């Protein structure tokens, strides 16, 4: 799909420039484009920049294909960019230089806030189907009363993935508190010496953050005001429980020797393989890694379950992530055509296209969207949290303060280079830069 579009892009570009020249030489008011194509509507070519995650590619290509079929005059040219901080860099630079594609996919929440949306993006409040987008999602893409994004994909949960056959074999219960979790780990370590009780994958450093990020549900359950106080610089991670627990938990499992041997170099596909095949018992991860299961270990998809990151008291809420979002930059010359596309994305029809392409990944943020009755085990484990309202948004959707070095600091904790308290204090120092950069009060 991508390649097809890429290949089409160059001839199309030539054609467009030829049209431009023809228009100049004839001096006519009306461009020949509309008459040449034979379509009633004028052909529009949109460009779209997406990250190179498999899930995003799957969603974007399916949506574009379905939309192009329904609207033959529109072609959407997909371009990929790297994810992670490198991708942040690409997006910011292209926005800053006015070189951004007509539509792009990027995170909601704190990363979105850092784009200076008021200056760089086009508000989408006025598109036709925007009312269908849930308020939860809108809150993550709103700045100064204007909303800028349409959801690309479904809600994600961040918790602990576990190998169900192993649990059944050893007769373990899904843990609801951290102590139960640790005693499960001890039981696994004792009964199965070649199984890693906890999988970590520092070949992709961002994965190290899950212990802190997915623990936020427990933090906010203990102190509902924590995020606001954090933004106002009134609380710190180093202040102690509940916030510091995420750091401490990683140190606990690392100190106990529960990590897989190849944790310094393994990546997400390795981690998912381990937890799917029972080489590892637990893997703290976001549910979007589900695509790895579908692609690499399709026979074991239903062997992987999910529970919320356990905290000190039971009934831990599942920390949930908004999906990425479609945005239109202020510099787009085809904003109207782009808005038409995004308006269609916010329909149940578009949700079905996504489910068809990548499977059921979680609840959608668009009214009227439904999931099939049969969903894979991991998603089935996630839905009850949403149905019962026992979810909490991740910190990045409640506070713009997120430091860039958390992943490196957590790698240090997991590798035994730095202790939890020291790491929390270090991270508090790191976020200061972000807060100052955003010009927040009290920093």
């Amino acid at each position, binding site marked *: 799909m991508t390649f097809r579009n890429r290949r089409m892009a160059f001839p199309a570009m030539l054609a467009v420039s030829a049209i431009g020249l023809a228009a100049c030489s004839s001096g006519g008011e009306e461009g020949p484009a509309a008459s040449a194509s034979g379509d009633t509507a004028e052909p529009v070519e949109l460009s779209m920049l997406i990250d190179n995650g498999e899930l995003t590619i799957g969603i974007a290509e399916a949506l574009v294909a379905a939309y192009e079929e329904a609207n033959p005059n529109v072609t959407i040219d997909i371009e990929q960019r790297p994810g992670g*901080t*490198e991708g*942040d*860099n690409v997006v*910011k630079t292209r*926005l*800053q230089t006015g070189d951004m594609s007509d539509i792009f996919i990027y995170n909601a929440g704190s990363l979105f806030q*850092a*784009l*200076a949306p008021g*200056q*760089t993006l086009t508000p989408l409040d006025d598109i036709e189907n925007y009312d269908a987008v849930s308020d939860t999602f809108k809150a993550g893409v709103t700045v100064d009363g204007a909303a800028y994004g349409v959801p690309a994909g479904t809600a994600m949960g961040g918790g602990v993935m576990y190998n169900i056959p192993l649990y059944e074999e050893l007769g373990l219960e899904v843990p609801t508190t951290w102590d139960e979790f640790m005693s499960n780990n001890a039981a696994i370590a004792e009964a199965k010496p070649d199984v890693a009780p906890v999988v970590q994958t*520092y070949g992709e*450093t961002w994965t190290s953050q899950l212990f802190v990020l997915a623990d936020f549900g427990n933090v906010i359950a203990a102190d509902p005001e924590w995020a606001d106080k954090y933004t106002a610089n009134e609380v710190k991670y180093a202040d102690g429980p509940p916030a510091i627990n995420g750091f401490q938990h990683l140190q606990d499992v690392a100190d106990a020797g529960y990590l897989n*041997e*190849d944790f*310094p*170099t393994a990546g997400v596909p390795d981690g998912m393989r381990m937890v799917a095949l029972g080489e590892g018992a637990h893997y703290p991860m976001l549910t979007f890694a589900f695509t790895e299961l579908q692609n690499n270990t399709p026979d074991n998809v239903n062997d992987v379950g999910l529970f919320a990151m356990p905290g000190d008291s039971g009934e831990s809420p599942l920390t949930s992530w908004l999906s990425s979002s479609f945005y239109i930059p202020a510099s787009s010359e085809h904003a109207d055509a782009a808005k038409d596309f995004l308006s269609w994305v916010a329909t149940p029809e578009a949700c079905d296209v996504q489910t068809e392409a990548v499977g059921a990944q979680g609840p959608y943020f668009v009214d009227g969207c439904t999931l099939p009755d049969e969903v894979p085990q991991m998603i089935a484990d996630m839905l009850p949290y949403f149905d019962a309202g026992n979810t909490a948004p991740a910190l990045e959707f409640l506070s713009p303060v997120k430091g*860039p*070095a958390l992943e*490196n*600091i957590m*790698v*240090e904790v997991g*590798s035994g*280079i*730095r202790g939890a308290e020291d790491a929390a204090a*270090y991270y508090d*120092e*790191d976020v200061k*830069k*972000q807060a*100052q*950069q*955003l*010009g927040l009060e009290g920093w």
Partner: protein
Amino acid sequence: MTDTHTPAPTTASASSEPPPKARPPKRKSMYPMWFYAPAGVIYTALFVVPTFASFYFSLTRWTIFDSEFIGLDNFRTFFSEPYLFDSLVNTIIYAVVTSAAKVVIGLLLAVFLSSQIIARGYLRSVIFFPTLVSAVGVGVTFSVLMDPFDGLINNLLAKVGIDGPGWITDPDMALLSVAAVDIWRGVGIATLIYIAGIVAIPQEYFEAARVDGANAFRNFWHITLPLMKPATATVIILSLIGGLRSFDLIWTMTKGGPGFSSDVLASVVYKQYQAGFYGLSTAGNVVLFLLVAAIVIPLFWFLNRKQVEQ
């Protein structure tokens, strides 16, 4: 060297002879000064302006669209945050280690490769070849080779019963492993410069030494080494600057990790830039600029002065 009566004994000192006292009278150039303008404009626009702009922006908090003047705060942050400061130390370690190793290994290889040995041309190409490969390619290749669990190096070590270390995953080793790869990649240039230097030594010295009964080691110690000073100065300066600015190899092999243990100034600057801290990142660049200047300019002066005194 003021003794101008005897014939100049070496090429090195001959080239550093002061020119004759009576300079030709200044003639008016036949070309107008305007001919400098095109080069001047390009140089100013692409080099002078950005350099001075960066000095200004290093004093600001710079977001996507606007900048706020905050004095020396960025520099204060840079020197107060442990990992930013550690990167400075790592940079110096990296530069000194790679530079020293390139001098020593390069010189020995050059002596070896300029002696009468079999397949000399082939061996010279082999030594020089890594220089031609892109640093990113080298970095990716070696991060696979050095993988502690599946890498070729540790697999080979395991065959002979050695439990290989985590080359790029052990915080104490990561920086030195990258430095070793840098040496492997850069030693070809050093060898090339040294070979050129050795070839330029007149054979008469070696003949005279042979008459005096000198062995190979004394030849090396008393003839080759002293006459290689200019080449050594070039190798040191080039590899030191390269080491201080090094980024590509470190980024492709470890991204500064694990944790921050192999972060150098350039990788830290890049990370700050990625995080959107453009002001802080620019301040890092200014620190890097000053560091390179503070080390290399005195060194250059020192090495060249020695050469003149010879």
